[in-house]
């Protein structure tokens, strides 16, 4: 018995596991082929992100690849054997707030970043994949006041990597480069100012030696921007604002809006009352994708400030929009505003998945955008033209998207007025889907979408702008949508424009999704389950009960030992889960920008956590049998 436990950690009982917790030793059930050799070798130059995005053994960026598919070609773990998945090792990040970051893996080293909390806010850790040994950690110089400038918990959505460097964004507005091998600081650049309400929570993306970083602060009237920082020097190469004159939005002669109502000079000024664009939000706090062939990056912008729409008559361009830009210059090629004159805080920063789809008998280069407003958009990614837009959840704020004009058809009976409570607005401010990223399988041709199902009451009120303080002007009270449940994990077919299957969850599904060639999709729930489901049927094949709820991003990769691993950080929080980790009163429904109402029972399911979990199949099935058998 003892011998069979060699390499196994004695935690099984503590963790309520039915299977042993083994270190990465021995041969896998199905070894990876020798051709899967990796580039790491002291003599070779460290790999570039352009190589890693197509390398199944590594997970080099949060979204896996530039197309943002979160699809892995690994299939050692598959629908037939995923039920045997077990913990290989764990690591505590030491900061008990929302864990939204994606674990990256480059050549056998795991890189993770903690939220902006604990003794070392935004601490970065490098761990050896095979052993779980800590190689190094790095703690940026903190500014604790930043914690009070973050609207929705003090999260980080992850790191970026390129050519031997790790890139970190800090909540208090810095971008930092570290030597991936040693953790040595190479440069740091201040990009944002908390006294203007700016923070950074997004995972940077590296394209052509440029680190792309956007700011948060839409609840503080912080003017949105996306900046390109030189990966080698830390110098700011360009910064594209989301509002203001064309010269600052980086709109030039090459720009073409897909619809006439968005066309014209300085629309980022003209579509606002005088000077309001300066405090107009439109922050780029979400995902960035990149099409090397078209040489365009794609990202969405957030809500306009303030939430009280009566403070800002006009379309409020370019808030709640998608930009396509040339990464070399930052110049916009096209932009499409999903939410003209946003009424409800429907940021449109969600991921844009770049795929080629057969539509009306021709293959189109499209971008799929699961909208916060509850509509699944399919856009022509060369022009920004809307091909289709269909509701994927219960929506009563928008009755349809007019494909001729590209504008949403609004339900006018719900339009907020100061002093009048609007009841039962669906979806609520976090939308039918928030930041939590979807995954696309080229095998099933389905999009796996984690999302929420909540409605709200909404009362706007007066608000004045004071730099560095919130600029909202709305009292919000959210609650479960029709049917009483609050979350869903669904598979969506973007060609037939239909939901193929769905799993309802009692709480919002605030974790990201992952799907693999093994036809398994992964996601986590806020009530502490990490689940593997059949990508074709949605049948739950395996689940693991962790220490805290999940709001993170699952990733998968392979080690030099030939084993496939799946990783995610356990630790509830984020906007939806802040109630379980911050001093928020479940009895006062309008707290947490109204999310308290929908999450007031969360503390009865979980408290915060900070545990990186790394899973793999057992190395030896006999060991499993030995351990799993109850004592006779």
């Amino acid at each position: 018995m003892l011998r069979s436990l060699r390499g196994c950690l004695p935690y099984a009982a503590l963790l309520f596991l039915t299977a042993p917790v083994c270190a990465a030793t021995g041969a896998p059930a199905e070894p990876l082929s020798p051709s899967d050799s990796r580039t790491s070798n002291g003599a070779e130059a460290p790999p570039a992100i352009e190589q890693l995005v197509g390398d199944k053994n590594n997970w080099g960026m949060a979204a896996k690849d530039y197309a943002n598919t979160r699809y892995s070609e690994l299939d050692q773990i598959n629908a037939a054997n995923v039920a045997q998945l077990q913990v290989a090792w764990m690591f505590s990040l030491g900061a008990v707030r929302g864990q939204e970051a994606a674990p990256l893996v480059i050549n056998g080293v795991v890189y993770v970043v903690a939220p902006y909390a604990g003794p070392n806010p935004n601490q970065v850790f490098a761990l050896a994949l095979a052993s779980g040994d800590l190689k190094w950690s790095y703690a940026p110089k903190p500014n604790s006041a930043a914690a009070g400038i973050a609207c929705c918990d003090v999260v980080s959505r992850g790191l970026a990597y390129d050519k031997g460097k790790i890139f970190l964004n800090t909540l208090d507005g810095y971008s930092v480069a570290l030597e991936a091998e040693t953790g040595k600081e190479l440069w740091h650049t201040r990009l944002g100012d908390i006294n203007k309400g700016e923070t950074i929570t997004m995972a940077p993306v590296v394209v052509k030696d440029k680190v792309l970083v956007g700011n948060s602060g839409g609840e503080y009237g912080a003017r949105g921007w996306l900046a390109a920082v030189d990966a080698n020097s830390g110098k700011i190469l360009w910064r594209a604002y989301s509002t203001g004159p064309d010269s600052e939005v980086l709109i030039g002669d090459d720009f073409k809006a897909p619809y006439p109502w968005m066309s014209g000079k300085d629309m980022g000024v003209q579509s606002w009352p005088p000077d309001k664009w300066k405090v107009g939000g439109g922050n780029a706090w979400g995902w960035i994708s990149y099409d090397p062939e078209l040489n365009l990056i794609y990202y969405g912008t957030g809500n306009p400030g303030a939430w009280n729409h009566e403070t800002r008559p006009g379309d409020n361009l370019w808030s709640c929009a998608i930009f396509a830009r040339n990464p070399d210059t930052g110049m916009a090629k096209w932009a499409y505003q999903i939410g003209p004159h946003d009424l409800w805080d429907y940021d449109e920063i969600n991921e844009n998945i770049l795929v080629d789809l057969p539509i009306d008998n021709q293959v189109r280069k499209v971008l799929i955008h699961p909208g916060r407003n509850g509509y699944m958009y399919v856009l022509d990614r060369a022009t920004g033209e809307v091909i289709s837009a269909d509701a994927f959840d219960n929506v009563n704020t928008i009755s349809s998207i007019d494909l001729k004009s590209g504008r949403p058809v609004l339900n006018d009976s719900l339009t907020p007025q100061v002093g009048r409570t609007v009841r039962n607005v669906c979806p609520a401010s976090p939308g039918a889907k928030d930041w939590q990223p979807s995954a696309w399988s080229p095998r099933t041709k389905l999009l796996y979408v984690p999302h929420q199902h909540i409605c709200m009451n909404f009362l706007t009120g007066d608000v004045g702008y004071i730099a560095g303080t919130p600029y909202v002007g709305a009292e919000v009270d959210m609650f479960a949508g029709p049917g009483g449940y609050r979350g869903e994990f669904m598979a969506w077919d973007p060609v037939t424009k239909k939901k193929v299957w769905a799993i309802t969850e009692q709480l919002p599904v605030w974790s990201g999704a992952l799907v693999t060639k093994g036809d398994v999709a992964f996601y986590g729930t806020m009530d502490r389950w990490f689940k593997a489901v059949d990508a074709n049927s949605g049948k739950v094949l395996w689940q693991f009960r962790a220490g805290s709820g999940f709001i993170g991003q699952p990733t998968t990769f392979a080690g030099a030992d030939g084993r496939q691993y799946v990783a995610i950080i356990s630790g509830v929080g984020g906007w939806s889960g802040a109630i379980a980790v911050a001093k928020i009163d479940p009895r006062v429904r309008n707290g947490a920008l109204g999310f308290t109402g929908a999450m007031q029972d969360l503390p009865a399911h979980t408290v915060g956590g900070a545990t990186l979990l790394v899973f793999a199949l057992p190395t030896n099935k006999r060991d499993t049998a030995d351990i799993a058998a109850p004592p006779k």
Partner: protein
Amino acid sequence: MVALIFRAPIRLTLLLLGIAAGLATVGPLSGSAQEGPALGSPKGDSGGDSAQSDALSPDRLIDVPIVNLTPGAVDVRPKLAIPNLDADAAQRGLQYFTNFNCVGCHMPNGGGGMGPALSFRPFIYGDRPENIYLSIHQGRPNGMPAWGTVIPEKLIWDIVAYVKNLSQAPAQEWGTTTSKTSPAIEQVPKEFKPSTAQPWNYTQKFSSGQAPNP
């Protein structure tokens, strides 16, 4: 006394109050801009001004501890004459709580969000009126701005009166039990009682994430 009250850059304050009021096309705020100058005048509506200003001079306030641990177990708390924190003060405090965007962080009825909840105790930096006053005036490390140069003293005391009200939850137990059946009650949410400065006077059955029972 006059000097003390006008120590704050009153023009900035009035500007901010004016912005808040001016943005409203409709709504109850239009009165506050006119009310502003009166509140800054030496003749406030709470009596005994001169005695209070002595008791609350910066020399005394700097002696207010924010912890209840003192070397030698000696009570070092200075005797202060706190202004009248009555219902009128709290009602005005509710207005300033909105005007100065306190509500943006601490949320309607102080339920907590970016800033901690004010709807239950203990307060991190002390729940006595002078502690709350100083937390507003000086700011606190994890994101609370230092408002002392922006909000006049008299208005800060009105906010203190309102914040004191926010934490008056019905007494249930010494600690806090959390379970599928506890807490048992919640406040009637702000969208249905927007103007009350006494939110704990209106409670209903806990809704567990479902729509509130009106």
